[in-house]
Every structure is written in C-alpha cells, then in structure tokens.
C-alpha cells in the first residue's frame, strides 16, 4: 500500500508523462548456469508459470486446420513433428532421432525415437506420422495450410482429389521408420516439418471425438505440454506433459496464452504484471517504452519484407522503368524507419530480408549512394520518363486500414512530392476489399504489399513474382526470371541453388518491379525473470526452453526473515 502511494506521488517525468518508477518492478536474481548449460535450480522461481500475450484468438487447435501465427505458437508447445527447433531456431531432431537424404535429394528416410508416448499413453510410431500427413493432405480435411505439403510427391493431385490419399509420397517402412518422397530437391523441407500441418495427431483420439478432438479435456498430444483448458477469447492453458521425452528438462510447468487483440492493451497488461511476454508492442509507443522499459523491450530481425508494389499491367507503369526507378529512388528509407516505424527496422533496397539461412540478398549499387544522389538521379529519370512540374505524375497509393500503412504511405507521398513533384492520392480500403482490388489488377497503381515467410528460404519471396502465380498481384512477368525459378526447383546443390535465387532477385530488382522499403523486426516486451529463449528470424519460441528466475529479495522481506529466525532461536 505504502509503495503504491509513493509511486502515485512520483509519477511524472520531464515530458509530463506518467511513469512507474522502475523500483516498483521486481528484479530477478542473477542467472547462474550449470556446466551443462542448464540454469542452477537455486536461482529458479518456485512458480514456473509463463503467461504469454498471443495476439488474436486462435482459429482452432487442430494442427491440420490451423492457420496463422497465434495458433502455431500454441501448437508448437502441444505437438512435436519429425523435426523441431532449438531455442535459436536451428532445425534439430524431434520425434525422428535421425534421417537419411538420398543422393538426388528427393527421398528422406526418418528414424523415429523409440519409447515415445502420446499424452494418453499410446506409443508414438511411424504409422502416426503416415496417418497424420495423409489426413493433412486429404481434400476432406480442407487444410488451409496444406500448401506447406506441396513439395511432397503427388500432394497436389491428392489435394485436388485426383489421386487417392494413399498415393501421397509417404511410405511406412516399419514401426519406427518412414520414407517421404519429394517432387524435387527442397532444402527447406526439414524446416517445413516443424510446421503444425506436419504434426502428428493421435488416431484413437480423432476416431473417438471426430471434429471435436481438439477441445480441452479431449486433445491428445505428443509435445512438451498438454491442453488443460480453453476459455474462448479469455485464455488457453497448457500444462507440462509428464510423458514427453524431455519432460525432466522442461522447467516451465504451466503456460497461459492470452488472446489480446489490441497491442496497447497488451502493454498495459504487461505493465500491471499480468503478462510475462507480449506478442507485440504498438509502434507509437516506441520512445516511451525505450525510456521506461529498456531492459524488457526486445527487438530482433524477422523474415519479412515491407514493400510497395506497382501494378505493371496498367499505365503509367507498363514499359516505363525510368518512372518506376525514379519513384523507388526518391524515397528516403532511413527517415521512414527512424521517424515512422521507429523500431529498428532495416531500410531495404531488396526483396529478400537479411538473416535467411545460406543466403545473402542482392544489394543494388544505389543502396550505397547518399539519399541526395538518389534524389538527383530520381529527378533525372522522372524527366526522362516525360514528367515535369508542368506535367506532374498523378498517382494513387492504395493500402488497407492500418495506422502504420497510413503513416508510411503518407511519408512516401510527401517524399515524392518534395523530390519529384508527384501528386499522390492516398486510398484506404478495408483489408478484403483491398486484397480483391489488388488481385484484380484493374484499379490499382501503387499499393501496399509485403511478405512474411512461413519457412526459412528466399524461394518463399521470389515465387510471388512468377508469371501466373495467384499471388502475383504485380502482373510481373519475365521469362528469364521464371526459368530461373524453375531451375531452383530442381537444383540439389545448395550453393548453386542460392546463386540462382540471387540472380533471380537481381533480375526482379533491376526490372524495378517493386518499391522495397524495409525488412521487418519482431518487437515485444519480455519480463526480466523469463530466460532461456533466444531471438530467431522465424520468431518461434517454444516454451519448453524457457524458465523463470526468482525475484531478488527486497529489503523488507529480508528483515522479516531475520526477525522470524530470531524468534525461532
């Protein structure tokens, strides 16, 4: 009581903003690691419950029906695929202890660990994986994430109901061995297997409860945690699975995922101590958070790119590379990331974000120029394209409703105005209207785009620009580019494959097909007590690696402890 009174009395900083004095937040004890890299039990808190803000309410906890980040965060704790991820995002053995890859890189043989159990006590066998992968690819399941299975042989035909599900390229060799055949070399395939759509489900569980098997009290899983409780739009509670293969090393006993849609609400919840981990933080609170929660604020690169697209099928962008180039050059990306987005996003001149395994993105020469040089060149190109102060370009930037998109579009418009004299109109649309317009390629000119990859590979970004791809809202079409992507699909030597993708990206960027702006970062608040997790580009954080430190004893409790001891004597 006295403490809260003090905090109310002293809660204005120099900007007149209310601040909670830092001493009000408990500080953890120093982390002590044992020789094996595990934390010393003496520094661990008694109550190992982690409460994680998790964005929107997950759509479902059926791993094969699930879609989107919120459900994937939970499913990664509940289930384990053939492969799994280390705290730093490395792909490591999961249910499979090892695997062989054939010479042509198309056949994977997985050897499962023995004596693994489901949470209901059933043994986890190779048959579980065969059954589950077939279920995920079955048209009857209608999985929205089945795209991830497309590298598997016959997956496309099975999904289209042209072949029976038994024809999917998966063979059961014996109780603990299975083989997966791919249509072509897919270096990121082991990573795809960590996606929920490749998780096993318990056949008995599914047969018993049918479509309701993923509800609390019913769901059987094979991961580090089991589903304890799910109150819709209130909380999802998981408890440690005592039958999990590494249960002894799992320190956190309970995980609570809170669906909080509003990011600023998450921050207030974190500040009041109700959350250990937020899903995100609002852009407009950066300066304040940086000042008041410097140790809790965690920012790290993410596999996503933010860019604007040109509709290359309508004027003025058909056959007009000078104009497109001018528009790309005339944007000061540093100002956008420093003043608008403000969370340490990396200004970008490329499509593929940095940090992707085995790949160095193409960096055009003008990335090293000063902005003044780029502006100069932009003005020259703008005139070359036939525009001037008397005959300015009139253009629309279209974006879906979001504070951030609006601010960025506004900044871009004013830079174009200042440098080139372009007259820009901002058009704001509701998401699905926007997506439809983008896809139809009729009324769009310049539009908000971007991509966050589901797997750690540049191909995920490049294939958006293939001729005829359903996601190619840009109308980009280049035969050489297409041919290179085709080659990427069959190339089994990693270095050559990377080189091909690098060349493809270079072609795309020298065609000036998009306006790169920045690459994404993840940003969140994490309580100082919560350790064991590591930043990684995929932003996947399994709770089983985490642990909570105990709080540093405050002076008050130390005093009361000595009093108690004296009384004992």
């Amino acid at each position, binding site marked *: 009581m006295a403490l809260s009174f003090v905090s109310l009395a002293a809660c204005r900083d120099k900007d007149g903003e209310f601040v909670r004095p830092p001493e009000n937040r408990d500080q953890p004890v120093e982390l002590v690691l044992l020789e094996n890299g595990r934390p010393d039990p003496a520094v661990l808190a008694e109550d190992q419950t982690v409460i994680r803000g998790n964005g929107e309410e997950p*759509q479902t906890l059926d791993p094969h029906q699930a879609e989107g980040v919120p459900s994937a965060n939970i499913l990664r704790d509940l289930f384990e695929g053939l492969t799994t991820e280390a705290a730093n995002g490395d792909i490591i053995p999961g249910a499979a202890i090892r695997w062989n890859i054939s010479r042509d890189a198309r056949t994977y043989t997985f050897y499962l660990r023995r004596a693994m159990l489901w949470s209901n006590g059933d043994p986890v066998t190779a048959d579980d994986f065969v059954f589950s992968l077939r279920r995920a690819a079955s048209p009857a399941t*209608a999985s929205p994430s089945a795209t991830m299975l497309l590298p598997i042989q016959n997956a496309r035909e099975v999904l*289209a109901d042209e072949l029976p599900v038994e024809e999917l390229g998966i063979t059961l060799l014996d109780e603990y061995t299975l083989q997966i055949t791919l249509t072509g070399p897919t270096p990121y395939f082991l990573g795809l297997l960590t996606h929920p759509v490749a998780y096993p489900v318990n056949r008995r569980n599914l047969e018993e409860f049918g479509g309701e098997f993923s509800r609390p009290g019913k769901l059987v899983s094979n991961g580090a945690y089991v589903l304890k409780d799910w109150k819709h739009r209130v909380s999802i509670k998981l408890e440690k699975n005592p039958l999990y293969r590494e249960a002894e090393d799992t320190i956190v006993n309970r995980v609570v995922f809170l669906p909080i849609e509003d990011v600023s609400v998450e921050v207030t919840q974190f500040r009041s101590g109700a959350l250990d981990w937020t899903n995100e933080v609002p852009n407009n609170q950066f300066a304040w958070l940086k000042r008041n929660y410097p140790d809790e604020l965690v920012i790290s690169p993410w596999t996503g790119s933010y860019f604007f697209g040109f509709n290359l099928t309508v004027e003025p962008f058909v056959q007009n590379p000078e104009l497109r180039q001018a528009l790309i050059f005339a944007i000061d990306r540093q100002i956008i990331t420093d003043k608008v987005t403000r969370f340490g996003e990396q200004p970008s001149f490329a499509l593929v974000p940095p940090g992707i395994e085995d790949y160095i993105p193409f960096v055009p020469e003008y990335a090293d120029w000063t902005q003044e040089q780029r502006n100069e060149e932009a003005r020259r190109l703008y005139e070359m394209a036939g525009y001037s102060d008397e005959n300015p370009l009139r253009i629309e930037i279209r974006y879906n409703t979001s504070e951030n998109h609006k601010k960025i579009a506004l900044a871009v418009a004013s830079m174009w105005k200042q440098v080139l004299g372009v007259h820009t109109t901002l058009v704001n649309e509701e998401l699905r209207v926007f997506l439809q317009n983008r896809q139809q390629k009729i009324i769009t000119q310049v539009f908000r785009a971007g991509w966050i990859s589901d797997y750690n590979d540049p191909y995920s970004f490049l294939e958006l620009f293939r001729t005829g791809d359903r996601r190619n809202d840009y109308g980009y079409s280049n035969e050489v580019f297409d041919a290179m992507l085709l080659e990427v699909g069959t190339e089994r030597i990693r270095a050559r494959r990377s080189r091909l993708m690098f060349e493809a990206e270079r072609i795309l960027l020298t065609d000036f097909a998009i306006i790169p702006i920045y690459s994404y970062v993840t940003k969140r608040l994490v309580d100082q007590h919560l350790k064991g997790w590591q930043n990684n580009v995929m932003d996947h954080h399994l709770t089983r690696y985490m642990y909570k430190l105990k709080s540093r004893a405050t002076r008050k409790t130390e005093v009361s402890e000595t009093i108690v001891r004296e009384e004992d004597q």
Partner: protein
Amino acid sequence: MQHSASRLLGLIPTLLVLITIAFFLIRLAPGGPFDSEKILPPEIKANLDVKYHLDEPLLMQYFRYLGQIITLDFGPSFQYKDWTVNELIARGFPVSMTIGGLAVLLAFLLGTLIGIVAAMKQNTGTDYSLMGVAMLGISIPNFVVAPLLILLVAVYAGWLPAGGWDWSVQRMVLPVLTLALPTTAYIARLTRGSMIEVLHSNYIRTARAKGLPELLVILRHALKPALLPVISFMGPATAGLITGSVVIERIYSIPGLGSYFVQGALNRDYTLVMGVVIFYGVIIILLNFIVDLLYAWMNPRIRYNEVQ
C-alpha cells in the same frame, strides 16, 4: 393481451426480412472467408468451398441456411473452426449481458437520482455542476475513459486488474463503470428535463397545495410521469448495452458478443455474422416490446386508447 400476442407474431416477418437483407449484404461484400494475403492454391480453396457449401449457387445457399436456422442451428463458425456459432453466442452473450445489465442498472439508478436532484435544485450551483459533469460524461468517448481508468486504477494504483475475464467482481468494475458513464449522463439530463416539466404542471401544484411534503410530491406524483421518456429511451439503450460494446471488449479484453459481430464481419465469417445479426434482431424486438408494455402500465392514457 391479444395485442401483445399479435405483436409477438409480427416478429417473424421482421426477422425474415432482416435475415434476407443481412444474408445477401454480407455476400455482396468483396472477398470471402478464406481470402488472406497468403492466397491459397486453387486445389485447397476448392476443398474449403466444398466443405462449407460455398461452391453452390447463392440462392441455394440461402434456402439451405433458412432450413438450417428453423432448427435453431446457426452452423459452424468459418473462422473459429473448433466451435459452432451457437456455442460462441452462448459463451459471449452471458458476458455481454452481465456487463451491460449491470451498466444499465447503475445508469438508471444513478442517472434518475442525479436528474431528480438537479431538477429539485433547478438553476442553482448544484444543478449546474451536476449537469456540467453529465455533459462531460456524454461528450468523452469511452475509448478515452477506459484506458484512463486502467492507467489510474490498475497500472498506477494496482487496485483492480487491467483487464481479462473470469466472472469476478474485480474484473467487472471498470468495464461496467465505463459502459454506464455516458448512459448515466444521458438519463440524468433526460430525467431532469421531464421532471422540471412535470413539477410545473397543475396537479403537482394541487398536491403541493394540499400541504404534502416535497419528497412525497416527487415520489408519489411526479416520478412516474417524469420517468416516461426515460423508459422509452431505456429500450434501445438496454439493447445497445447488453449486446456488447466492441470498444469496451477490446480495451478490457472481455469475451463478449460485440467483438464476434465486428470481427465476424471483417473476416467474412458468414455464419457467425448471420448468427449474431439474428440474435441481435430478436433481442432488440423483444426489448422494444417490453418497453411498450411498461409504457402502457405507467401511462394510463395509452392503456385507455387501447381499450377503445
């Protein structure tokens, strides 16, 4: 009685019109439930459409839907695949009704009290300050009030939780207060106005002339007629409050009905939107009906007309 029964029957065509308009309007909106930035391959999209009957002609889907809701089955939610729309409404509505109901109650009691006091002290300092505060209550939107309350009461003082839901009183206090504030203010102004009017009428003068104490004059003679406009306001206001407020639900992280409605519409979750629309329709019609009954009970002039 007969009148009431026929009014209740009139609910059915009204609902049918509502269902038809809502059904075709939501289908007219661009985009579908499975559209997102990660566009699905055609094979996968087709499987989803078949599963949810979206591949059928629209008219057929409409009649299929009508057939389905006759059995009071609103179908599965497109977005929350583990739950049916019936389950979602059954979970969301009790929460919205509790918060909204308490807010209505608070607003009614507090609002009329303030209104009466202000009317009795008409044109004094008390009146002006009460009405000033009320005007403030009406003008400040709840998306400003709510974060302010959270900041002061939950974050700095730590007296109440900042949000979340577990049916405990502590978690209800702030949302109920926030929700009740503008309605309280409105009711206070409404009560004051009509009370002043009633207090100037002849029969009140008669009552006073009889030597009745002022308190009795108010309670016995003036209160009922003065509350009539408040009662007719309460119908739609109650419907508005108990059906859930998106703003309140988002800011306090409350699993009420309002967010299902808005999120459902944004996600093109056709079944969820339709379910909530129909449910809202029924509630609003019922509440208006109840207000009519109350009105008749309180106002003899209407009762007399009906008998005629």
